[in-house]
């Protein structure tokens, strides 16, 4: 640890031994925290001390710790991934806080994201939305020639913006309605914008939206909280694009049993 100043913090952490048991907030002092630590490293230090005392460490999801995998995420002082815009919890550093701060840490709250333990929630609902239509069918022979299918630059840029979604769930967590429309719209759009995604475009949006509804997510009321919380800065315009695609697909597939959901 650097020789610089350290911080003394107080944490209020949601502790819940399992999905079926009752949870509660527990207060932990967190002294001698370096401002250069990431938020997760700060939790690691607190956990080391808990383990040394023989207590159960705080469970939280994490993997790459470089802001690209989408595993980490928690409500930090009422904000998904904490106070910094476009930043995951693992890339949030303790210099974003002041010495003496009290920090409240809660898991994502949504019916579709049941708590597994402490700050860990089950986000398999997102995987089921993807499985319903977040793919393109392609032949699996030899590799196709590069640039065999021309992609307009604007479409490529927009698709790339949508594809930046890491599926962390911050949009659902920050939404006052626990809606997954920003996530679903990003996944619908990044394929729907590309020529390779056209064949399944209608079925994709109908099935992904149907699965989203079945999983028990709320609906968008256009607050924009998701956009503000998104560590990858996915824009609200993708929700408008998904709505447009859904309306068009609904009208074009009137006779079929489209949109009845399930796992594609």
């Amino acid at each position: 640890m650097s020789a610089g100043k350290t911080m003394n913090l107080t944490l209020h952490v949601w502790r819940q031994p399992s999905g079926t048991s009752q949870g509660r907030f527990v207060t932990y002092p967190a002294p001698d925290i370096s401002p250069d630590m990431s938020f997760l490293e700060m939790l690691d230090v607190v956990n080391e001390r808990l383990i040394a005392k023989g207590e159960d460490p705080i469970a939280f999801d994490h993997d790459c710790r470089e802001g690209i995998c989408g595993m980490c995420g928690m409500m930090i002082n009422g904000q998904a991934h904490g106070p910094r815009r476009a930043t995951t919890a693992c890339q949030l550093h303790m210099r974003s806080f002041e010495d003496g701060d009290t920090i409240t840490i809660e898991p994502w709250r949504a019916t579709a994201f049941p708590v597994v333990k402490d700050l860990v929630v089950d986000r398999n609902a997102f995987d089921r939305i993807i499985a319903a239509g977040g793919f393109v069918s392609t032949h699996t022979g030899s590799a196709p020639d590069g640039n065999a299918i021309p992609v307009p630059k604007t479409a490529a840029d927009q698709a790339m913006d949508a594809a930046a979604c890491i599926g962390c769930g911050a949009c659902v967590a920050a939404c006052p309605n626990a809606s997954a429309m920003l996530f679903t719209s990003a996944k619908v759009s990044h394929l729907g914008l590309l020529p390779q995604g056209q064949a399944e475009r209608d079925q994709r949006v109908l099935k992904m939206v149907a699965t989203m509804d079945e999983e028990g997510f709320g609906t968008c009321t256009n607050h924009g909280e998701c956009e503000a919380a998104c560590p990858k800065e996915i824009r609200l315009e993708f929700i408008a694009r998904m709505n447009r695609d859904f309306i068009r697909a609904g009208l074009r597939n009137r006779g079929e049993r489209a949109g009845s959901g399930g796992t594609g």
Partner: protein
Amino acid sequence: MNWALRFLRSSIGLKLVMAVSGVVLFGFVLVHMIGNLQVYMGPTLLDEYGVWLRALGHGAALWVARGVLLAAAVAHVWSAYCLTRLNQKARPEGYRERMNRESTLASRTMRWSGVVVLVFIIYHLLHFTIGTVHPNFVHGAVHQNFVVGFRVIWVSAFYMIATLLLGLHLYHGVWSMLQTVGLSHPRYDLMRKRAAAAFAALVTLGNLSFPLAVLTGVVR
């Protein structure tokens, strides 16, 4: 029609019902305000406008309009009820701490501004259309009913509060509607919010002026 029902009962379908019925109601609110501006053009014009409206299409137009508006209002409230229930079920347990970053007062109060406006509409119909809660209602004497009705201070105050809440509701409603029907483009997205604000401000200022004009004696 099975597909249509399934489509409309989906989350986006319900939002679409909300948006389309909203467009009908926005249109009415705007025309209603513009029609009432005639009160500034002399004491007889509003009465003549009333007679003209009742005679339009051999008397059928008024009832067609009423039917469409009632259907739109029922669809709007019904979709709001369904969506609100879905949203409450999606997060039964809230956060101990929650900070709003992007949402506005207008977006967060849609439910409550909507309920107040609904109560206001019922009162407004009893006040100026049916006349049961009006101190001295004379059928067909639109201008006189207008002036006498707004001279009661608390009634005017309620009208102005409801008008301000309607303004908030319209601001978030107009731009939400554009989002729901999928009218979005990076170049115009900023313009959408400005257009919604301008529309809401226009209707609100117009409607606020009526009770104020009577209370200050500009219209008598």
